[in-house]
């Protein structure tokens, strides 16, 4: 319960931000907050609060897993820092690069392969796997 008190502002904000499937669980002195939001800004806001409560995330007492990735069957924007996003043959960085999606390009999300990888199609018809973290719901 002490950790829920420490991260109270974050938990309250998650509730206000209408995080779907929100769960808050404490186990072995680590707090686990899981949920899904529909836009990247809501996720960034929650992470900013986490960074404020625990500067540079040093305490190792919270796992914040907020999924803001684009759902299958929707459009997503490529939100890399500035570079192009590799499109790969399979879900993994060991897989061959078969194309690129430009920074800020809008792509179609066909399915999610796993926690990290999504199968996408570009407007030019190139299909392959990209790292989900760099996709934001468009």
């Amino acid at each position: 319960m002490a950790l829920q008190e420490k991260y109270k502002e974050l938990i309250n904000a998650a509730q206000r931000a209408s995080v779907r499937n929100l769960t808050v669980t404490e186990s072995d002195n680590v707090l686990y907050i899981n949920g899904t939001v529909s836009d990247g800004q809501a996720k960034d806001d929650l992470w900013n609060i986490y960074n404020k409560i625990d500067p540079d995330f040093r305490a190792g007492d919270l796992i914040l897993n907020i999924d803001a990735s684009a759902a299958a069957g929707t459009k997503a924007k490529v939100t890399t820092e500035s570079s192009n996003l590799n499109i790969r043959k399979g879900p993994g960085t060991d897989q061959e690069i078969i194309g690129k999606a430009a920074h800020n390009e809008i792509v179609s999300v066909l399915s999610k392969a796993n926690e990290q990888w999504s199968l996408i199609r570009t407007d030019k018809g190139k299909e392959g796997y990209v790292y989900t973290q760099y996709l934001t719901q468009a």
Partner: protein
Amino acid sequence: MKIKINSGWPIVFLILSIFLGSCKGRSSETTNADTSTTITSPADNTTNKNPDTATVVISADDSLRNMLTDAIKDYPGVTATTDQGVVTLTGNITREKLPKLMMSVNALHPKKVNNKLTIK
């Protein structure tokens, strides 16, 4: 006969007005009951505000190791190791890139993340 009927009307009105009066009384009682229901509802809201708890799912080390390779690929200078679900990050990173890396690692269902990165 006629006299009895005529004298009976006021009695009918009297009975009707008593009946209507008692109905009115009942409807105000109902309103009071609703109000008291409303008083109890904030307690329900408080219960709903408590988010659900869930069983904590921790990724196996082999799976975590594979996922970490992908997660840190775009962060040269960062090393990630895992032992029984506990991920330790070492090396160097800039402060502006740290949140994105942490988001990525936190999404892999680790048991814990020890951030031992040097921030440049």
